[in-house]
């Protein structure tokens, strides 16, 4: 697919299921400097628990806060040390390797300007780039593109933004033309969705609850027995959000995005979204559900690096989520909607190997509203820094069009090599 991108028809691109952006616009200034930068945004929907992904193992209140659910350097599955204070979830060895090679950066205790706790509104603020939800139906990445002039025939796929997924995420939607590509495999029904439905059935419809439980039981047996669940199977069984399916989907979607971005005539800016991070019950940061998801994400990042090939050196991938989760564990071994979290940056263009944080602390009085990790870095400063130094979007456009109302939020300098 990658080698033939220039001959791919629009129809083929639209047939797939991830969302990559094929741009009609190319970073002109960067080109003038002899660079050919690639930028990919991955939206993690559902609110990633930043403390479970990158743990402040050096904070004296950490173990007290999370107890048995705390990642630790001397745990059964030891966390991967980053800088002496922070450590990475052991499910992410690829990201750890990138970090050690100076190709991954973590920004901690970060948040958008949104301070309520609704997923829908939080995602809207995250992707629209506006301070309030429901204000516009365009995304900051698309508006950033509009500011970058086209320097080639608009018919070429390389002149367009690109999105992977059944629906282009809001972050890339807008006036700049976007090509979308849907991977052949649709995202499986996530465990989250199934468990929520089962919970609803248990409260309102015992017949449906039993029926769904039975099918899930069968699906688990099929998975354990290695039975195939191919689309050609005449007796379709529920996929049940098995982690293998999730891992395959993440890898396929991200890998495809990278192949498009790497192609000589391909798009240069893209976005995709991965669901499933809303871990209210049995979060499983160590060896459980969240660890599995982080592992799948780690695999997706590895796939991006592999498929980018030489272009990896000019690549930045930004992984962002709408908000974080409560500092404390709740009564169901999970975490509820919170505020501060992490942003994870990966790519050969980064000056990485750093955790950037103005650490707020974890004492009760340090927490936002005495419950959430207090955000001390505005996510917009990070994104503005990347757009400015990587794609050469100018300051005026960044403050006026891309992140309106963010004049006071300066682009973070020095993120790139």
């Amino acid at each position: 697919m990658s080698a033939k991108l220039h001959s791919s028809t629009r129809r083929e691109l639209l047939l797939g299921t991830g969302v990559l952006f094929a741009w009609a616009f190319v970073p002109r200034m960067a080109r003038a400097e002899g660079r050919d930068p690639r930028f990919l945004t991955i939206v993690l929907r559902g609110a990633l628990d930043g403390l479970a992904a990158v743990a402040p193992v050096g904070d004296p209140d950490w173990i007290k806060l999370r107890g048995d659910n705390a990642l630790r350097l001397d745990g059964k599955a030891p966390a991967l040390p980053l800088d002496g204070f922070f450590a990475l979830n052991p499910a992410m060895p690829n990201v750890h390797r990138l970090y050690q090679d100076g190709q991954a950066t973590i920004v901690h205790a970060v948040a958008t300007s949104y301070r309520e706790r609704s997923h829908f509104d939080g995602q809207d603020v995250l992707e629209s780039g506006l301070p309030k939800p429901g204000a516009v139906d365009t995304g900051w990445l698309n508006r950033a593109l509009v500011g970058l002039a086209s320097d080639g025939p608009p018919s070429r796929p390389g002149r367009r933004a690109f999105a992977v997924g059944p629906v282009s995420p809001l972050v890339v939607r807008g006036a700049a033309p976007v090509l979308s590509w849907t991977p052949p495999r649709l995202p499986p029904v996530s465990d989250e969705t199934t468990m929520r439905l089962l919970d609803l059935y248990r409260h309102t419809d015992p017949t449906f609850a039993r029926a769904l439980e039975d099918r899930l039981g069968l699906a688990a047996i099929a998975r354990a027995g290695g039975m195939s669940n191919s689309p050609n199977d005449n007796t379709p069984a529920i996929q049940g959000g098995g982690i293998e399916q999730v891992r395959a989907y993440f890898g396929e979607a991200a890998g495809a995005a990278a192949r498009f971005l790497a192609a000589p005539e391909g798009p240069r800016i893209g976005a995709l979204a991965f669901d499933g991070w809303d871990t209210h019950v049995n979060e499983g940061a160590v060896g459980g559900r969240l660890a599995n998801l982080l592992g799948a994400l780690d695999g997706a990042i590895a796939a991006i690096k592999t498929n980018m090939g030489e272009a990896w050196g000019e690549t930045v991938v930004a992984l962002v989520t709408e908000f974080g989760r409560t500092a404390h564990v709740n009564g169901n071994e999970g975490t509820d909607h919170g505020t501060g979290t992490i942003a994870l940056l990966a790519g050969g263009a980064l000056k990485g190997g750093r955790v950037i944080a103005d650490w707020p602390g974890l004492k009760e009085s340090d927490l936002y509203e005495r419950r959430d990790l207090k955000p001390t870095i505005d996510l917009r400063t990070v994104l503005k820094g990347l757009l400015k130094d990587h794609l050469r979007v100018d300051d005026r456009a960044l403050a006026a069009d891309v992140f309106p109302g963010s004049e006071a939020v300066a682009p973070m300098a020095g993120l790139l090599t």
Partner: protein
Amino acid sequence: MTLDPKGAALALHRFGFGPKAGSIAAVASDPLAAVLADLEAPRAGQITNSDLTSGGAENRAVYESNAERLAQQKLEQKRKRAAEAGIDNPDATAMMADKPVTTPPVAGQDQPAQPKPVPLPRQIFLKEARARFDAALDAEIGLVERLVWFWSNHFCVSFDSTVMAGAYEREAIRPYVLGRFADMLLAAESHPAMLLYLDNASSIGPTSVAGINRDRGLNENLAREILELHTLGVRTVYTQADVTNFAKVITGWTILPTVDNPDHGGEFVFNRRLHEPAPQTLIGNTYPDTGVEQGRSVLADLAHHPATARHVATKLARHFIADDPPQRLVDELTQRFLDTDGDLKEVTKALVRAPESWAPEQGKIKRPGEWLVATRRAVGRQGAIDRLMRQQALMGEPLWRPSAPKGFSDDNAAWLDGLAVRLESANTFAQAIGADLDPQAVADNALGPLATQETRLTLARAESKPQALALLVMAPEFLRR
């Protein structure tokens, strides 16, 4: 004026294809009157905006297409053989000279590969399916379309037997869903699609001219299913002798062969040479041999039999109201059927007016096809028909392809197993469009006051809009009716 939005939402799910935006408010002043008014809509149940042709024409088109392809293949083989032998092949051109060649020559190596064309039967299927799905999407409430689906399943045929399955529904079912049962019965049993599906087209009277000459005989399939499934009901008032005699009555009900009827092939014909020339006795009545009229007389009597009235009343009540419908309701519908000479509009009205039909419990599970329509109505989207039909098949209800002449089951138990597959379908649907929709607004449109507190909370807490939409269409209030 008091408003009854809950009754409105219930009525739209139970008697229609589920609410569209604004539907609940539109019928809240008098849900019962609105449902009854659906029966009075002009051209209700008819497909008007379509370029669909008759079943016979579809049948002939497929025949011609196959014949041309065969000719093309033979020509290619001939060319190949000639090329191998190192000679030109002038007579091939001559052979085809008087015949328009509609298939393009096979692509050479220097030509780009053409996408594989959709086979004609599949094209016909998709066109028919689209027209049917759209009729259900467009209907204000959809009771008449629901009746079409019900009766089409009662008198089911299979696309695997005939390309005319979709046309059959338009020709034999739609015109009669608000008419007389006797008329629908005759239209269905004499339609070429039914004669092919249940083998009557090849049934031959043992002492008919053809039977004697060809030494071939009776096929009881259609006669048995008419008695067992379409009219009296299994284990009622008929015997094996009645089945055999009835089969003899309808010998000669067949179709014109397409091979030598370029203009009328595939249409119904009564072929006297195949007809068993004798009077026959059925359930105590003797029918003289009056040719095709003999079968018509039997069908007319079956249509008015009390066992038929009860069988049909039970099935209607089971489909709309409950797996085990209340006895009083079945009795009332049976009586209405008998009192009105099988007037299906009157029977439907009695069903809609019955107090049992307005019980607040949503006792029935929507069948997959119905549920697919309801999901698209809820969000105002049309959907791609090939994908919709694939999903409907995966959920166990392939359109016009029942696994047996009994049709698809109307028992809840039959559809519980498919719940997990339905969740996958819901997830796919929601992933594709959910990001653009406000789940609470869709819930207001599609469920209104039917939504339980638990469902509302589940939607509000969903981690994404697509997840909320998937949960909404999988909520019990949406799956049931």
